[in-house]
């Protein structure tokens, strides 16, 4: 998407990652700001299902033509799904970073961690 957007229903991590929390699970991805800085995403290879990811630690990489960028987990948990459609269409991370461009789903190991994440207003303010 051409214009910056930061949906209200998401939680944000300062390393430009988002989480959509749904009960004990969360969908993770990178923010509009992150994809814009990186440029056209040409490669994403997710972790294996069952991998444990830890809050604030990198769990995968996204690559543009020129650069490689770590993707940091905003929350801890076990990977229960990886967005396989990105293997053939990694550009979805640029075109639609919050919906079709999601990266992984995790089962949260410590849902209380979400309290330390930013809401859309705080994240947007942090970018200025």
């Amino acid at each position, binding site marked *: 998407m051409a214009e910056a957007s930061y949906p209200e229903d998401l939680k944000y991590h300062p390393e430009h990652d988002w989480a959509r929390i749904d009960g004990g699970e969360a969908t993770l991805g990178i923010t509009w700001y992150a994809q814009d800085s990186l*440029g056209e995403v*040409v490669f994403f290879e997710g972790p294996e299902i069952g991998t444990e990811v830890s809050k604030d630690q990198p769990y995968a990489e996204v690559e543009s*033509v020129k650069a490689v960028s770590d993707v940091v987990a905003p929350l801890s948990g076990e990977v229960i799904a990886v967005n396989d459609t990105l293997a053939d269409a990694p550009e979805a991370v640029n075109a639609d970073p919050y919906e079709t461009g999601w990266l992984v789903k995790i089962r949260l190991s410590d849902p209380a961690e979400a309290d330390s994440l930013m809401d859309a207003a705080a994240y947007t303010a942090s970018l200025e």
Partner: protein
Amino acid sequence: MTSSLTDRRTSLYETHVEAGAKMVPFAGWEMPVQYDGIKEEHIAVRTHAGIFDVSHMGEIEVEGPGSLAFLQRLVTNDVSKIEIGGAQYSLLLNEDAGVIDDLFVYRLGHDRYLVVTNAGNHQADLAQFGLISRDFDVYVRDAIDNYAMLAVQGPNARRIVENTLRIDLPSRMKVAARQVGRRPAIVCGTGYTGEDGVELLIDPEITPAIWTELVDSGVVPCGLGARDTLRLEVCFHLHGNDLSTDTDPISAGLGWACDESTGFIGSDKVAVLRANGTDEKLAPFVIEGAGIPRQGNPVMLGDEQVGEVTSGTFSPSIEKGIGMAYLRSDLADPGTEIEVDVRGKRRTARVSSKPLYKKAR
């Protein structure tokens, strides 16, 4: 790499920023890495026409009765083969045959040559030119501030430049003096993309107007990101990646640009390397499955490191990871399977012939 106060700006800096280009520091200059996106710009050059600001490239003028003898001593190719209005790729070596720079030599007149250098090496080149010029009846002048340089490349590039600037263009690997924007200009039938096109050396004052005229005629503004993917697809060397003072021309596959009979600096060493062969050779490769190789990635055969990637990227034309690596010579033949260690993951790759991208006929 961060931006610094000392980074120079080209005459097109404002034009780039106004157009929304992403600016990055490169070899002491602040340059556009991309406009709308590297892939789009890359495809525009392969299928239509793109324009690059390459004003960071340096120019050195060589003039005087000793010009030919001087250049024969200084650079590796046989300069006597360049006719007036001709161009030639060449290398500047040190005594150990290390590559100080790779450059283009244009012959503008009987005893008049223009040498185009890489931005990051321009000062080192000038020092070497100055030092060697003492032994010859020749006048060497740094002309970097006299010229802006635009590369217009792609299958439609020539037609659009001709129609827009209303000038006749020299054919491929030729050079001609022309008027651009009513100022003297040098037009070169050369490029760094594997496509047909021209490079324009023009007065910096009129460059923004010329750029805008060409863009208004449909030429797509491109950044250094696309320039890099385009050159790597056709296996053109990039000094600093694939060439350095630690590499020699024979290992780099540039023996064709060296004629030892001219007695250039480093020629004895090149002759020995050519006769005896080298331990390593620079070879292009394509990653077979997923993964993008990057500069510095080790190349492995089992547990043994057998090479190192010097250039690596995602190829927008082939849609795979591609690169060039110095490989143990017995592994550098096309078809050989190798493994590239991309940040801890082994990626299977196959050594290819040059170029990696072959134009459909």
